[in-house]
């Protein structure tokens, strides 16, 4: 029952937090001067194409962009009626993308999946690389294994992602015949999932995963190593050794679990930070994830689209934090059984 109450409580706080975030989000994206439609009108004029202007004017009315900002917010939220009555977040209407001339909800679906896919691949990569290497580096600290893994990790970390991507694409294409950019062979786009498509997606994922993953993996590895080295001196490690456990098994069962604590605390951010951190990477690598959509939307001040993406990221963060809190409690019974209050 306690758990249920906790969950409900957390859920309510989460909604409240989300509301606060929504205010910030709406404010921030409206900070830069101008708005999409005036910008578009400017752009059209600048290129001497006065033809689209009428349409922009039409949209401005349709989406209450002529209202003061606070009213716009409430209309967007669905707390005030727009020209066609209440139609906002609360009513499940996410708004309209001016840039794409489509309802936002229709637009980001595919990109969301791709985002999840790419980031999942990156997360898997990070864990798959960082966990064993970090453990190895700790177990064999101050050996060449340790140094090499640190070197490679930092090499990945110290190379700007764009440059790294370009290098990998160029040479990967040249010597390994890897594809340049994109998330699948374009010919599979819109096709139903098939073995070939799967294969194509996987091949295309190699370099992006690597590029997005290296920095995360290196960071995680080094921190894990440091935390592990701390734990290795603890007596319970000796107990485990005295039981006759193999070093590797022992490391993963005992100290790793303790050393993992800070990472679990960070799991909440992992996904969202990958989403926002990989924005530029995605832009550069031409991945059809939410990142480029967001950047483009922000640059052109496509308000509803950016707001939707940002709210989505925020939701992810909040859920992530929730999950990480729960995991943390699961991982460390001392926390689970409620520490002392001071």
């Amino acid at each position, binding site marked *: 029952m306690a758990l249920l109450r906790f969950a409900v409580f957390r859920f309510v706080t989460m909604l409240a937090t989300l509301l606060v975030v929504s205010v910030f989000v709406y404010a921030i994206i409206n*900070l830069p001067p101008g708005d999409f439609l005036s910008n578009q009108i400017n752009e059209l004029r600048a290129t001497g194409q006065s033809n689209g202007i009428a349409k922009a004017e039409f949209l401005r009315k349709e989406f209450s962009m002529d209202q003061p900002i606070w009213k716009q917010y409430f209309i967007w939220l669905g707390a005030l009626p727009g020209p066609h009555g209440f139609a906002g977040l609360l009513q499940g209407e996410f708004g309209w993308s001016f840039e794409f001339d489509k309802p936002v909800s229709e637009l980001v679906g595919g990109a969301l999946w791709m985002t999840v896919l790419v980031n999942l691949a990156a997360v898997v990569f990070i864990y798959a690389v960082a966990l064993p290497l970090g453990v190895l580096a700790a177990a064999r600290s101050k050996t060449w294994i340790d140094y090499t893994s640190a070197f490679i990790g930092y090499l990945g970390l110290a190379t700007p992602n764009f440059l790294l991507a*370009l290098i990998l694409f160029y040479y990967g294409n040249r010597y390994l015949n890897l594809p340049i950019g994109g998330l699948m062979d374009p010919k599979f786009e819109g096709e139903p999932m098939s073995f070939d498509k799967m294969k194509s997606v996987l091949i295309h994922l190699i370099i992006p995963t690597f590029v997005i993953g290296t920095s995360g993996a290196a960071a995680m590895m080094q921190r894990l190593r440091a935390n592990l080295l701390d734990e290795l001196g603890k007596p319970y490690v000796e107990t485990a050794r005295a039981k006759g456990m193999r070093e590797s098994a022992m490391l993963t069962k005992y100290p790793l679990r303790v050393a993992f604590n800070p990472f679990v605390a960070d799991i909440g951010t992992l996904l969202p930070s990958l989403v926002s951190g990989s924005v530029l990477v995605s832009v550069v690598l031409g991945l059809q994830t939410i990142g480029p959509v967001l950047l483009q939307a922000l640059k052109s001040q496509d308000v509803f689209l950016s707001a939707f993406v940002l709210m989505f990221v925020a939701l992810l963060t909040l859920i992530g934090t929730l999950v990480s809190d729960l995991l943390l409690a699961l991982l460390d019974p001392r926390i689970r059984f409620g520490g002392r209050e001071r």
Partner: protein
Amino acid sequence: MTILPDGRYVDDAPYETDTGAEARNAELDMSNSRLLWLRFKQHKLGLISALFLLVSYLSLPFAGFISPYTPNERLEDYLYAPPQLVRLFHDGEFVGPYVYGTTAEMDLESFSWKYIQDRETPMKLKFFCEGSEYKLSGFIPTKTHLFCAPEGATVFLLGSDRLGRDVFSRILYGAQLSLTVGLVGITVSFVIGIILGSIAGYFGGFLDWIINRVIEILRSLPELPLWLALSAAVPSHWGPVAVFFIISIILGILDWPGLARAVRSKFLSLREEEFVRAAEMMGAKPSRVIGKHLLPNFLSHLIASATLSIPAMILGETALSFLGLGLRAPAVSWGVMLNDAQNLASIEIYWWTAIPMLPIVIVVLAFNFFGDGLRDALDPNRS
């Protein structure tokens, strides 16, 4: 030694009963920092790294002196010149450090610059020579350089870039910004992160709840739109360095939640440790418990995190300049240089323009090994 007939073993050596008879240990009078240093010294790689970093930082004010050119000095006849080798022997004879003169040629087949070496005449480098004017340590105007190009030739140790600027000199000048400004952000983020994280983790309860909410809101707030908004809001007459300085502070202010959460979660479990309770029972104030008992037990993670933040900060500007917020010419930093190198030609044809990657890797590795040495020295189990 005696073996008694009943199989007993008895030691004959005299035995002592009084305790504390050992000679006074020399370490005893040393301060903690000296002890730390003693132990740090044993980590060779860490020591070398620390020395390297020290030298790097100390030489920052002298970047102008060491580099043969000033950072924005363009040699218009030497665009995209490849690195030149400084040689010592010519035709088997020792002539001292010299380079060959080169001439540029436009190759209209491949649309790239070709450089032809004049291998006949060695041109000796000049030392402590007059070059273009710069400000030593930022305020003493002078013209003396450690070494300069010989008359009629160039000395591009690491080649030149699209505008004919010396990559080597630019790397040295770039260090001035890359090695300093970014650290400000780290400091800010660490200070806030540690303070708030420890408060949340140690006190728990309502404070924890509040801080957690702030963290959540901050973390779910996107940075990207903020940058875009900022880039419009920064007054135009600010110099690029000032802008970047402010940005890295803001970066730091936004960056703390991750660390704070890590600190908090670790403290949540650490505060249950017996020694913490013991300290509390002795009457230690929370600040003391946090500072003396909890944080030191989390140092490894902090050190590792700090070393890891450094590349992020050095490179952060490349991402920011994507959004028009990073450092801009005439300011030079490694990130700026790499930003210029972000095209295929820099990888395939003019590879030396991507060289600034190297100092970043080296510095980051040095920080890492330095941190590792520090961690080791602090680790009680290794004594």
